[in-house]
């Protein structure tokens, strides 16, 4: 029962969504879009953690649960990061009337 879906499927899924997130970060111009792409990347890593925990060498019900703990903490971190990120984007929007990352070019050199 527990082995119906192989581990590799989860890993392919996580790698695929991580790549989608990374492409989003690189190609999106809107800062909110970048923020969303970062969230996808964090969640891809979370899928990895939970999958590795579930299919790990120690039985999931009694072994160390650090993989799941990590995933839970990452969810918290991601929430904090979004709060701060949206705050910063709003701050920039007020100054430039735009939320595009390529408009921010005062600092360079």
């Amino acid at each position: 029962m527990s082995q119906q879906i192989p581990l590799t499927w989860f890993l392919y899924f996580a790698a695929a969504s991580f790549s989608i997130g990374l492409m989003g970060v690189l190609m999106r111009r809107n800062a909110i879009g970048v923020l969303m792409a970062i969230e996808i990347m964090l969640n891809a890593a979370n899928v990895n953690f939970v999958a590795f925990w579930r299919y790990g060498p120690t039985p999931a019900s009694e072994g160390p649960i650090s993989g799941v703990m990590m995933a839970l903490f990452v969810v918290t971190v991601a929430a904090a990061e979004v709060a701060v990120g949206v705050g910063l984007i709003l701050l920039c929007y007020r100054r430039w009337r735009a939320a595009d990352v390529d408009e921010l070019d005062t600092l360079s050199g």
Partner: protein
Amino acid sequence: MAAGFSLQDFILFSPVILLTGWGLLTLILDLTVLSRLSDTDRNRALGLWTIAGLVSSVVLCQFLAFEYVGNVSGQDTLIFFDTLNGGVLYTQFAALVLLFAILVTCLSMVWNFTSHWGEYYALLTWSAVSMIVLIASEDLITLFLSLETMTICLYLLTAMEKSKKRSAEAGLKYFVYGSVSSALFLFGLSLVYGQTGSTGIDMIGQILSGAERPGLSGNVAGGVAVLMIMVGFGFKVSAVPFHQWAPDAYEGAPAPVAAWLASGSKLASLVAMVKVMGGALGTWSATTSPTSPGWVGLLALISAATMTYGNFAALGQTNLKRLLAYSSIAHAGYMLVGVIAVGISTRREEAAAALFFYLVIYGLTTIAGFALASWLDRDRGTEDVDDLNGLGRRHPYVGVAVCVLMLSMIGIPPTAGFFGKLYMFMEALNVGGQDKVTMIGLVALGLFNSVVSAFYYVRILKAIFLRESDRKPLQNMGPEVSLPLAVGAGLALFFGFQPASLLEDMEVVSRSGLRFAERPIASEERGVVRTILPARTENPEAAPAAEAPKP
């Protein structure tokens, strides 16, 4: 102490707990008692309040170091389910981070760059807390959590300067780069977890060195993990090619925050990097055979690029903060040589001690450099190198202090910067085996770069001593600027004459606080003593689960 936790763990971590509460009290004070005061008065009151909290935390820390830590070492120092280090490493570096924080708080009181002083000082306190926890981390969970807490506080601190547009931009840029890098870092950690089934740093090191085929050869997932973890740390310590945020963030941030970014955050990230790369992934470090590359080669490339780029880009800078930013990138390059030495040297503890020596001196001198920038910011609102013109005539003592600082940053005796470079490069040259040539090349490049760096550091001295000022004179700097400047220059000179005292202290720290797994030896057949995971009884993570009620 066995796995699990006791009251003593809380006592050992009381300086950190105290500071966390102190930050909350800062917010409450700002909103209640001090709400009617002017911005200047609130800045002064809350700054002194924060300094009081930091000082009491240092005192508590040193008291605990004598009372509890004493001479315990090794496994005994781990607390809170083996996730944190409660030994000399923690107490010494906590005191150091807090000293940096005190100096940065002094600088924050120099001028009014924001009106949100309660939030500012609370975030400063909490970022100091998370730096201490990051240094003490012995588990990937606490490591990632404290790393993120630290950077999230720093994103906000960077964007704190209200009067300048560039501050918000710097904050957003730092945020975007930083959070992408931490996502990459986390994915790397997940792959390491998948390979080892553990998140304990020491445990990962043991499992990897006990594997059937130690080393990275043929291990694609391991290679990807190393790459991603290196990207994560590369961003945090601003190594080329992940450095783009650093000059913008340092220039845009208020000068005290830039000082904090360059000293505290770099110190904490590099200690964590030594632990993860040297401790957990140390097995994957060396080039053991042509078919088994380690992470050393990659890190050597990054290090060479970092110091060269940092120094050459700094040559053309006119803004003092931006110049210091590039100088901090260059110093990160030198320090990565130290990290590599820790990874492959046979004298790993000594190599780590030399790196820590360099970090301490670098942190102190760079804070003092940003003290100069804060002073310019307060009186002129700009911080160009030209603003320093004629400073030596008007303020000879400042001139002497800056002279000491610049000599230390270049690495000229009798300043501590010289001994920092000397110890670190000597440890790098002690490396034997296949990577010896790489290390010799890196040290040679490092020395060449030190010569290049002299050009822009001396430009600051030239402005101070040889040029006439054409701008309005600076006012007296006051104790908030002079204290960090004096502490930085004084300690750079003191440890220049007494380098052994600091080095011995750092050796004690690295001997008792860092645990390195055995490294594979190329020719030796290690046999299949351990399979993939060690026996359950050896697993410190298994203990908490055993305490859980059984049906």
